[in-house]
């Protein structure tokens, strides 16, 4: 069971969190302008690396914040957690 360092609440057990997939997938500004292939890339295609992975987690049983983690998908070692942009920066 992972120990995840919530940027707000500190280290908590994995069971308090929910996983949100690859970080950095940004919703296209103008989806209508995209080809089907480009839209499919946004919707479905993922890097899924074996190794360092930047991913989103939500402290769903705690402060309900989304934040980022860089985690190795092979060793599960967590290199660090980071807050997302905007007003969460604090």
């Amino acid at each position: 069971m992972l120990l995840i360092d919530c940027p707000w609440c500190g280290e908590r057990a994995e069971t308090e969190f929910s996983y949100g997939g690859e970080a950095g997938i940004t919703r296209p500004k103008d989806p209508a302008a995209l080809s089907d292939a480009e839209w499919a890339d946004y919707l479905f295609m993922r890097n899924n690396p074996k190794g360092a992975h930047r991913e989103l987690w939500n402290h769903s049983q705690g402060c309900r914040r989304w934040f980022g983690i860089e985690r190795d998908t092979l060793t599960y070692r967590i290199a660090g957690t980071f807050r997302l942009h905007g007003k969460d920066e604090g």
Partner: protein
Amino acid sequence: MTDLSQRRHGLETLVGAHGDREQLSATVTLEIRAAVRQLNLRGDPGKAGLRTAAEEALGQALPVQPNATTAGPHTICWLGPDEWLVLSATPDAANVATALEQALSKHGAAVNDVSGGQVLLHLAGSGVRDLLAKGCTLDFHPRAFAPGACAQSGLAKANVLIRLDEDGEAFDVVVRRSFADYLLRWLRHAA
């Protein structure tokens, strides 16, 4: 017609035969504190004026450190960087919500009275830490969980807010109403 004034919390079925104060085990007592008002407050603490306005309305500051509470006329728990829970047992608690809402409306904040939707369980006694540790992954050691601290987590299979009182003696556990029956069953079983 039913006399509604007599119905304060509708938790009678939870308390059941056990009364308002229940001895869960030799070392833990449980009290359901239905009279405490609970207000959920959301807003941006970085916004000029919001914290001041809240402090004026409540008579005490909002905690901005994670997992902290502030004490004063009320107990205010940090829930997230833009979310708090005001626990108020003052005689005019019913008016606090209105006052707060008025004070904060121009700061874009959201105030919701959630007293009817959450149940506050007060657990006291020397065995509380051990009892909580059966169902919660938080560290309740005095070094890790100081008096006045609060944290949200899971207790058994329910989401809860847990707060240690200022004396470091008793814990408040806040749970959503629909889970309260389950959580009480679990507490009685685990104790």
